[in-house]
């Protein structure tokens, strides 16, 4: 059996010609320029999305077929088509609850990041505080958040506030660690360089430690994007009158499983959008990360 010469590559070829401008208009010179490799990997190769999307499609079809052929009741496992239909039919309901959860996620994430930032900076500047607080913080991470959630409802009520606090409680820890780590792990050689150049303590902080800590801070932010969604939903499970977590719980109790799935479907993009937002800000603030000599606009003029 001889493999066909590259007919299977038809998936990659047309997409590639979308990325590089068509050489037809510009003639030879433009064709040569468009042959240059694209800068960086901003958009990513289309293949990166193609394969997971294809896998999702296969899984969905398999799911649909299984449910129909095995006649699984809808209160056990609804078919994807039914979930989609539910979402379409009841979209104002889902939209409303998504909005509630989104607000909690944003507010809780922001609060957690703020607390983490302040704690991290304080612990960096006051060694005593770090020595006293750091072990406690680590120990506190062994307390399951579910255990705290009911208390938060007692203290902060049934509504918005308890969810915001719940999200903030999960978010602040990784941010604190990231900030403290980033500030403390500045390259000692660079600190010595700044010292020989006569930098003041303020310059040492703002022109060296803070920029050096930003990459670490952003990895903390990425974690917080994921955690704050989890926190808000847990808060809603424990006691709420609105939000996707509440919707899931009440639908589940009435065996409307399709609605549970639809709620999960609404939840997923929240985390993704937050992650994307963090990545965007990071790319804008830290353009120097992930650069290599290939990312030069100029032909290397060495020597």
């Amino acid at each position, binding site marked *: 059996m001889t493999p066909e010469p590259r007919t299977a590559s038809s998936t990659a070829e047309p997409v590639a010609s979308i990325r590089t401008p068509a050489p037809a208009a510009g003639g030879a010179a433009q064709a040569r320029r468009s042959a240059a490799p694209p800068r960086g990997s901003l958009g990513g190769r289309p293949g990166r999305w193609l394969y997971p999307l294809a896998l999702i499609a296969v899984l969905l079809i398999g799911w649909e077929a299984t449910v129909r052929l095995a006649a699984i009741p809808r209160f056990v496992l609804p078919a994807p088509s039914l979930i989609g239909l539910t979402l379409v039919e009841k979209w104002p309901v889902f939209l409303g609850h998504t909005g509630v959860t989104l607000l909690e996620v944003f507010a809780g994430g922001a609060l957690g990041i703020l607390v983490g930032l302040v704690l991290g900076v304080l612990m960096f500047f006051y060694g005593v505080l770090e020595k006293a607080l750091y072990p406690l913080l680590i120990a506190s991470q062994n307390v399951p958040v579910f255990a705290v959630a009911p208390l938060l409802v007692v203290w902060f009520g049934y509504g918005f506030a308890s969810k915001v606090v719940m999200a903030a409680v999960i978010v602040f820890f990784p941010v604190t660690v990231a900030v403290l780590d980033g500030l403390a792990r500045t390259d000692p050689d660079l600190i010595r360089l700044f010292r*020989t*150049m006569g930098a003041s303590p303020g310059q040492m902080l703002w022109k060296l430690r803070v920029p050096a800590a930003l990459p670490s801070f952003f990895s903390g932010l990425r974690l917080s994007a994921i955690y704050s969604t989890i926190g808000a939903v847990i808060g809603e499970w424990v006691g709420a009158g609105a939000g996707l977590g509440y919707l899931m719980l009440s639908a589940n109790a009435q065996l409307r499983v399709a609605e549970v799935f639809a709620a999960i479907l609404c939840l997923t993009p929240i985390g993704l959008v937050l992650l994307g937002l963090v990545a965007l800000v990071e790319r804008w603030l830290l353009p120097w990360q992930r650069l290599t000599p290939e990312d030069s606009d100029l032909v290397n003029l060495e020597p």
Partner: protein
Amino acid sequence: MNAGTSAAALEAVALTKSYASRAGTYPVLAGVTLALAPGEFVGVLGPSGGGKSTLLNILAGLEPPDGGQVRIHGRPPGARPPIAYMQQKDLLLPWRTLWDNVLLGPELESPHDRVRLEPKARELVRQFRLEGFADHYPAQLSGGMRQRTALIRTLLCERNILLLDEPFGALDALTRRRLHRHLLRVWREFGQTVLLVTHDVEEAIALSTRIVVLSARPGRIVDVFPLDVPHELRERTGETLRLKQRILEVLEGDDDA
């Protein structure tokens, strides 16, 4: 304190230094005494690991010596010695462009200094063939370009003592020669006192007014060669060739010992 020593711009007096390792302490510098007159250009040659970078670290005040002392213009160094130090690693700030990296020293001094030195920075960037790369980040530059950037940054610090640790190590022979000329021109113009560490005997001969040869670890000075021939004539005289031969013999002799 006698008048002779206080005339030196930079002075090392019987410097000793040991480092601790798991096996115990091992000496790195075994009593280095060296005085640089103002405006002198001293090249330091020596085998790898002999303590050359350690010597420069101590002179720059980054590490304390175990014994001996450093004097600058006859006095112990103050909080901010007039020294610009280009370390063996280029130590560029990855979040700053080439342009913002070379102007770091003046910027830390004052915003006014930064503005004042921008024309000089532009001139050096051009001479060092880095124009067009000003807005590049260090990660986008080659090793040799990063080294040139670090040298410009050091020159823009406006200190009258320069410590240069293998500043041309990552460069090809041609670029190296061109940068030798530029460095000499800057040195003639501003008359700094320079201590330059190198592995390249020809480089030491091309640049120095005096060459100091350091031994293998623990480092001490094994020989000193004054160079009286003007820089321009050095390539053409047979004396230079003989000097290179003698220096290599000293280096190799120490290696055998």
